[in-house]
């Protein structure tokens, strides 16, 4: 008699546990948004120090991109179409001292971006997208040559990725805004 009872009721009732878990599950399912944050990452230059002058940059190592109030892109004061920006930036960065007007090495090359107060935001983003695309293509090319795999397949924080990043560092400078 005793033995039989012990056999029948040895378990804690588990059925309500599943109900509670389901309730919580449904709550989290409803409140979860699985959209990933995507965007163009950039590092702003720090506020210049009055005591230390900015480091000297040779004219040829600097590419000035201006997006004016009319949404026109000017590279070194010459108007340029947005789809052509990528090729211009690529040839500028990857010049390695061949053309005397373009950069000495990818490490020296600085892309300076200047905007007007009335620049349309989407034009700025389109232009920045092209510049980022140029770096991305150069890195992809370097990765294919060196390791035979696309740059995007290199793991985040891996040695190989760091090596490619060092070959083509993103030196994008946001120019100081004009006063007024």
């Amino acid at each position, binding site marked *: 008699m005793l033995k039989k009872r012990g056999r029948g009721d040895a378990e804690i009732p588990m059925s309500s546990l599943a109900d509670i878990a389901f309730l919580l599950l449904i709550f989290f399912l409803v409140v979860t948004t699985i959209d990933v944050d995507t965007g163009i990452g950039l590092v702003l230059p720090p506020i210049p120090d009055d005591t230390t002058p900015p480091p000297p940059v040779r004219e040829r190592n600097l590419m000035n991109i201006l997006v004016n109030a009319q949404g026109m892109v000017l590279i070194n004061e010459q108007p340029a179409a947005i789809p052509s920006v990528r090729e211009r930036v690529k040839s500028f960065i990857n010049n390695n001292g061949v053309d005397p007007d373009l950069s000495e090495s990818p490490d020296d090359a600085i892309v300076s971006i200047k905007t007007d107060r009335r620049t349309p935001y989407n034009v700025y983003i389109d232009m920045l997208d092209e510049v*980022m695309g140029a770096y991305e293509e150069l890195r992809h090319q370097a990765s294919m040559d060196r390791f035979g795999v696309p740059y995007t397949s290199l793991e985040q924080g891996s040695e190989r990725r760091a090596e490619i990043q060092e070959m083509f560092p993103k030196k994008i400078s946001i120019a100081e805004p004009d006063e007024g």
Partner: protein
Amino acid sequence: MSKFKKKQANTKQSVPTSAMPDVVFMLLIFFMVTTVLREVELQVQIDYATAENIEKIEQKRLVSYVYVGPERLGGGRYGETRVQIDDAMVDDINAIRNIMYDKLIEQPRLIVSLRVDRDSEFGIVTDVQQELRHAGTLRINYSTRRQV
């Protein structure tokens, strides 16, 4: 053969449900981990710009958002371009540096995500960027959607 059949007939007919809580818990834990509970109520209208060469922000905990866009006035009307941080509109643009500095103290690896309406002018973004530079929060991200 007949012996085998008899044995099968003796087993329980019900589907075992003891593993169900485990499965449910596993899903529950997954959703708990991926959920970011605090979403702000937007008071400005934002249509994201699109771009091709975008990167994902993996660590959402590092991100702080700055919203820039025309203010929602109700009734489908929009006002001036304003800046919103967290749940409040920013009236004085110079206040951003203090807000952001406090956030930076809390999270030294802060990334500021700029969610700007695609039709706004860049002047206000420049102002915000200048404030961010003063605050020392230099890592930014222009929030964009993938181009289709």
